[in-house]
């Protein structure tokens, strides 16, 4: 998806507002696998609007370079201007403009399904990591994402997700082929919205590349059905969309 051809960058953050606890949960999940003392420079690969950029730099007390091809997404990221330890650069994930071995940690969040050539992007991650460096990958997988609560409401959505998201085995293969070793994989419980109505409000922004791919009638019909369902649900019931979390390691030279 070319985000520069859409109005999604402006709505992207609102559609994904996090409770601070959710962000902290992710930062802690990463530092559980990647010791803070071993990280001086982070690449935020496909940083989008930079939601993780500032928090990662602070959490790891490290320099961070955010790479993103979309001009509009980067404008949102730069406007956040988190600190002088965070900087951004427009580039493609398949052709990183960064020196070999410059990073201790590459962080990738919800990017794999946007890449034209994931295998080449994985090679670039391997190249820019130092020996012993790690790659932390937050991603949808076919296995996990097909269970998301919104999918049954939208006709055609399941097929789009099955087609675009890689399986866990494929993800592992992708990075192993790039010379990295799997260090860990788990599924992180991720609260996406506080309630069904809040979930509907976030989805209504359509700042999701899968929903954006649906024809308008399918989107509108689905959203109406989801809203009707939301009204019948316990208003205190949070909505979870659990997320795959992989950590890969580049073997020491």
């Amino acid at each position: 998806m070319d985000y520069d051809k859409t109005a999604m960058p402006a709505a992207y953050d609102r559609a994904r507002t996090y409770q601070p606890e959710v962000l902290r949960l992710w930062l802690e999940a990463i530092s559980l696998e990647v010791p803070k003392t071993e990280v001086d420079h982070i690449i935020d690969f496909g940083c989008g609007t930079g939601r993780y950029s500032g928090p990662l730099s602070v959490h790891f007390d490290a320099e961070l370079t955010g790479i993103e091809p979309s001009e509009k997404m980067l404008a949102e990221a730069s406007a956040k201007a988190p600190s002088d330890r965070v900087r951004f650069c427009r580039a493609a994930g398949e052709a990183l403009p960064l020196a070999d071995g410059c990073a201790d940690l590459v962080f990738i969040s919800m990017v794999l399904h946007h890449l034209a050539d994931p295998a080449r992007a994985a090679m670039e991650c391997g190249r820019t990591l130092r020996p012993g460096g790690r790659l932390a990958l937050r991603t949808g997988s076919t296995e996990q994402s097909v269970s998301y609560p919104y999918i049954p409401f939208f006709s055609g959505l399941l097929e789009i997700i099955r087609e675009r998201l890689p399986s866990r085995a494929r993800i592992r293969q992708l990075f192993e082929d790039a010379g990295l070793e799997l260090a860990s994989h788990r599924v992180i419980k991720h609260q996406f919205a506080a309630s069904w109505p809040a979930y509907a409000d976030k989805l209504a922004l359509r700042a999701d590349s899968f929903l954006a791919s649906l024809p308008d009638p399918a989107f509108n019909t689905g959203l109406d059905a989801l809203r009707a369902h939301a009204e019948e649900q316990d208003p205190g019931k949070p909505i979870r969309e659990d997320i795959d979390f992989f950590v890969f390691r580049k073997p020491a030279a």
Partner: protein
Amino acid sequence: MNEPSESGTDEVDPKLLEILVCPLTKGPLTYDRENQELISETARLAYPIREGIPIMLVEEARGLDDD
């Protein structure tokens, strides 16, 4: 020409310059402050810098031999 802008944010971050390479050849870059470009001699391309953000995309670069 190479006066810093009013906000002082148009200069490329020096720490970023240390690690930037040409995305095509992975060769070194020369910072042309006056024209706000990063020059890759190995690729014969000049990558633009806009509002302090390097645009390291081949399709946005200027060919050094195009005249």
